[in-house]
């Protein structure tokens, strides 16, 4: 039901944004017609999804439920945090150092605690990317604003 509400809001938002797009009738429908059709169908389907959930005889069985507090989801949150750090590091210090942080962080999130693995894998992977791209393929990898 929450999802249905979310998609309905997305449809409304899309419809709202199309108000300034041109539309000159069906023979020359400009840029506004098609997005409005999509938004309308999305809103209609959201209502259907909502009704489907309401009419479900066994909502607990029919609806998909994610256990937000499970150990798996906690790992996903941790990986999400690592990826945010990766994006920030990518912006400031470039790809190779950011990859070091990301690979180490994800391995740590996945309960890898063996120090040699935690050190060698990120370094080897980053080195591989640097050699393969920057050295062999001559592709300039993003350096980050601090090193530009």
């Amino acid at each position, binding site marked *: 039901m929450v999802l249905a509400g979310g998609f309905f809001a997305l449809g409304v938002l899309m419809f709202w944004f199309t108000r300034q797009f041109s539309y000159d009738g069906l023979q020359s429908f400009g840029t506004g017609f098609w997005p409005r059709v*999509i938004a309308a169908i999305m809103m209609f389907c959201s209502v259907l999804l909502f009704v489907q959930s309401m009419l479900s005889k066994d909502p607990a069985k029919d609806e998909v439920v994610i256990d937000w507090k499970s150990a798996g989801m906690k790992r996903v949150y941790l990986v999400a945090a690592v990826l945010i750090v990766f994006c920030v590091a990518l912006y400031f210090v470039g790809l190779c150092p950011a990859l070091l942080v990301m690979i180490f962080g994800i391995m740590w999130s*996945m309960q890898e605690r063996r120090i040699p693995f935690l050190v060698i894998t990120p370094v080897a992977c980053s080195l591989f990317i640097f050699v393969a791209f920057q050295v062999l393929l001559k592709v*300039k990898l993003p350096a980050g604003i601090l090193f530009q």
Partner: protein
Amino acid sequence: MFDISALGIALSSVFTVENILLILIGTLFGILCGAMPGLSSVMAMTIMVPFTFSMSGYGGILCLLGIFCGSIYGGSITAILINTPGTSNSAATCLDGYPLSQKGEAGRALGISTMASTFGGVFSALALFITAPILAKFALNFGAPEYFALAIFGISIVTSISSENMVKGIISMMMGLAISTIGMDVLTAENRFTGGTTYLLGGLPYIVILIAMYAFSQGLINVLDYKKGGVLNRDSAKLTRVIPTLDDVKKTAPVILISSVIGTVIGAIPGTGGDIACWTAYSQMKRLRKEDEPEFGKGNIKGVAAPEAANNAISGGALIPLLTLGIPGDAGSAIMLGSLMMLGITPGPLLFSNETDKVYLIILGLMVANICMCLLGYCGMRGFAKISSMPLQILTPMVFMFCAVGTFAYNHNVTDIFVMVAFGFLGFFMVKFEFPIPPIILGIILGDMIEKNLQRSLVLSKGSFGIFFTRPISCVLMVIAIFSICSPIILAIVRSMKRQEKEA
């Protein structure tokens, strides 16, 4: 009917040292990815697509064809050895492959699986060679209403098949279509949903979204499902003889042939894929079992040959609608479409009349990829079997790494990586909430085609939607599309009414 000079040009393009090497590398990469549970064939292709753009000539396409074939085959290795299909295409192979492995006949099962996969792949390439020009000639009569109907047909079939809940499938499709509207409109130069940024003027790059939705989200699923010490296989079965015996070849030859036909036909239908093909072939062969043969599910060698021939046969089948009509039937062919277009090859009926050599190049590439797969399979089977012992906590960060590097390599734009991460999380939650991903991807790809041809058709008909139902081809396609969308809903209502009648 066949252009000999174009065939000659294609032969000289494929059989160069560089291109053969690229096919070999692609096939090897595909097999390795296929052999690792958690990495799918689509994922292997999406990760490699950006790198193939930097390859000279048509090397990128040939390399992708190698990955396509190799990854489907690679999935059977872990299915047979550890009862874990590397890709969903090999799920049916587990049923008889693993019991054979338990009996100490892993080498026999892998040998037949390699032979069946190779035959299925080569057979479907031949089918593509024969049927595609005929279909393309027919498609030359298509106008804007037919193309609109065709795109609606393709997307509706994919939507109806890929999800148990039709409403969720349609919402996914609408999301894809909505994403396709982002950017500058080509006809009016008006910006849509760009938020004033120059990055979005050209629209969201669909390769980036493809990497996010398939590869990145799969990495997150690996993280979610990870169990400590999650090593896929520490005890790879010992492989004895891997070359099939003459007796096995004789026994499985008819099965392989029938399954290859099933795989090719199913592959040509938009929305289907290797998983449907392998289960269909398996169930058909199970029905045809003779009484003196071992039961299916308990180590019948035909139970390995049938799904393997069928799932590899979809490679050529899936290229039939792609090359002749420009409609990708599944995610794998959608990636091929993107790569072909990046190389200036526009799939569709005109490709067959204007650039026949390129069509032959793709067909020949597919055949060579299958032969490379066979050689690599028989030579490196023991090595591939060991790949499944890679720890997940090392494999998963590498998936994320290749996603990031692959995304950057596509456009050399750091913003693409940020977009990929965001869409990766969106894809993860969509998968978890059981929203199908293929309709989103097809929506993004076909959105522009649908809008432009709708506009042209309405100009032709002076604003009347009747044009789609007064022309025979578009009418048939539209009726099938409407039926495929409505039938699951109608069936659900009928079932519910019957249930209520029974209860009353």
